[in-house]
């Protein structure tokens, strides 16, 4: 063999050994796979091609001149996942702790640029000790390359962040600005600053897990979309999510044969909703029964649980599902719930994924706590998201649908192409008690028997308006259906809407209440 070939083989060998035996052993001890093991497991066997293996930093200060950082601490390349091309960048914690320097950043950003141009999803596997401080300004500007690349690719290709190790400091804006964030239960951490910085700047003692772990982001902050057990689970679930997504915004998601007939009636839905209008129930009971094979990939299940979002299929067609959850806060829409729904609706719209909106919600939350948090500007995001969205939208009103919540959950004129309502539906401006107490205030006050008059008037209002028929008479509800017909109607509506096309005048974008 020629010497130059041997040299190449030796160089490759050296880089593939990553940070060396000791560092690799440390990675395993921490319960993590190495970057190369993750890549190996993620891509279909034998399809991965690495690029930029020999890229090297150019810093000489602080002893960096002789410092070899294999692959610059990030393995980049492309290959097939579920038979379709995907671009990935996997940070290597064994190589100088996967620190983010100028060329580490350049590899990352170029991978996203390439994925955007090729129209393929990008998956980033985050496991980094943070900024490589030895590189000073070069590191700082490289963050901008990354953010710029990913933001310019946003809405063109799906981008998924996998928090498999730490991702702290400004770097944490990278995962958060991708479309979906997966976080490993024991090893994934994300934060604007880690515990040491919080201690020195604020004097607060807090451990990494409490500050930046899954409870922090999947429950409290709403930054994490899916919590996974470990590296294997993380990569499996990522593949599962990718199967729902198109390669880019010019495609529709792949339709598959799920073997579940579009015409399947669901008799268990008749009588499922409690007759007592104040009684809650679990909306998952409805979702699981109507989607293909009961398969629902829920997003953000632990944040703002009063709404449910996720992906499912109806007669093999990928669909984004948005639903109220009466079992949590009565299904009321608060600030967090509105944010959760709005961003999901916009993602689905960007990637040609039809929406099915199922609701049973009394209202947007009122009162000082939510008012002062800004329920108006947060709730507005839902209105903007649905009205802006041009993908097929089908709405099903299960029971309560009052006031702003009727509009916010995608009624006919906030964007629904087809609206169905169950016979249990109560669709009107406000509940009977509220309406009667306003309309008949004088009459009730001056009556000799105010309670009797009040009850009579409430009942009159209820009989007239608390049903689906007034809205159906005006055509705001297309059809009042039996609950067991729900799946059939949704599937048929999505068939009708398959080639829906909307033309609107040019504008840069709407001024959504961010």
């Amino acid at each position, binding site marked *: 063999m020629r010497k130059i070939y041997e040299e190449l083989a030796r160089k490759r060998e050296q880089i593939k050994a990553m940070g060396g035996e000791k560092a690799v052993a440390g990675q395993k001890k921490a319960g993590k796979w190495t970057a190369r093991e993750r890549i190996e497991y993620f891509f279909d066997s034998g399809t991965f091609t690495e690029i930029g293996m020999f890229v090297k930093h150019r810093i000489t200060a602080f002893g960096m001149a002789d410092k070899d950082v294999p692959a610059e601490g990030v393995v980049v390349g492309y290959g097939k996942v579920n038979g379709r091309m995907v671009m990935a960048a996997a940070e290597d914690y064994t190589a100088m702790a996967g620190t983010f320097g100028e060329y580490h950043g350049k590899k990352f950003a170029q991978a996203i640029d390439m994925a955007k141009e090729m129209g393929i999803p990008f998956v980033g596997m985050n496991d980094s000790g943070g900024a490589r401080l030895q590189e000073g300004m070069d590191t700082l500007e490289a963050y901008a390359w990354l953010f710029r690349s990913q933001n310019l690719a946003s809405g063109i290709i799906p981008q998924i962040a996998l928090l498999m190790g730490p991702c702290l400091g400004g770097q944490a804006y990278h995962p958060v600005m991708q479309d979906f964030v997966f976080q490993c239960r024991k090893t994934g951490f994300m934060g604007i600053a880690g515990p040491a910085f919080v201690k020195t700047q604020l004097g607060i003692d807090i451990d990494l897990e409490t500050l930046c772990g899954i409870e922090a982001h999947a429950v409290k902050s709403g930054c994490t979309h899916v919590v996974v057990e470990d590296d294997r689970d993380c990569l499996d679930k990522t593949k599962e999510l990718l199967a729902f997504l198109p390669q880019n915004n010019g495609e529709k998601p792949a339709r598959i044969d799920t073997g579940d007939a579009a015409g399947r009636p669901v008799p268990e839905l008749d009588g499922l909703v409690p007759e007592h209008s104040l*009684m809650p129930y679990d909306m998952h009971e409805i979702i699981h029964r109507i989607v293909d094979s009961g398969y629902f990939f829920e997003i953000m299940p632990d944040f703002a649980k009063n709404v449910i979002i996720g992906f499912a299929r109806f007669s093999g067609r990928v669909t984004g599902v948005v639903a109220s959850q009466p079992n949590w806060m009565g299904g*009321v829409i608060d600030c967090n719930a509105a944010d959760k729904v709005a961003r999901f609706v916009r993602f689905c719209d960007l990637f040609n994924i039809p929406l099915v909106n199922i609701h049973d919600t009394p209202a947007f*939350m009122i009162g000082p706590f939510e008012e002062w948090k800004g329920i108006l500007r947060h709730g507005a995001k839902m209105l903007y998201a649905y009205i802006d969205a041009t993908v097929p939208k089908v709405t099903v009103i299960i029971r309560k649908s009052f006031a702003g919540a009727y509009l916010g959950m995608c009624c006919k004129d906030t964007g629904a192409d087809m609206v169905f309502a169950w016979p249990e539906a109560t669709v009107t401006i406000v*509940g009977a008690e509220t309406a009667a107490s306003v309309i008949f205030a004088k009459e009730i006050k001056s009556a000799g028997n105010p309670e009797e008059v009040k009850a009579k008037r409430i009942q009159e209002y209820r009989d007239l308006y608390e049903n689906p028929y007034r809205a159906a008479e005006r055509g705001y509800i297309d059809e009042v259906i039996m609950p067991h017909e729900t799946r059939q109607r949704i599937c048929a509506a999505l068939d009708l809407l398959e080639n829906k096309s909307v033309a609107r005048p040019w504008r840069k974008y709407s001024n959504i209440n961010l």
Partner: protein
Amino acid sequence: MNVTAPMVGKLVSLSVEVGGRVRKNDVVATVESMKMYVRIYAPADGAVKEIKAAPGDLVNPESVLMVLE
């Protein structure tokens, strides 16, 4: 650990007593708010150390309904 109401409302009922054990996500109380019965769930496994609200009380996100240990 404190159990608080997620929203403003009127406490309708308590489903536990002092000394009783609860598992995470058990319903421990019901609040009426926004024309709905809102279930309050135990945030963790534990025993009910103290109950700090009674049916009929107006509660809000800052109200401690009970304390678990």
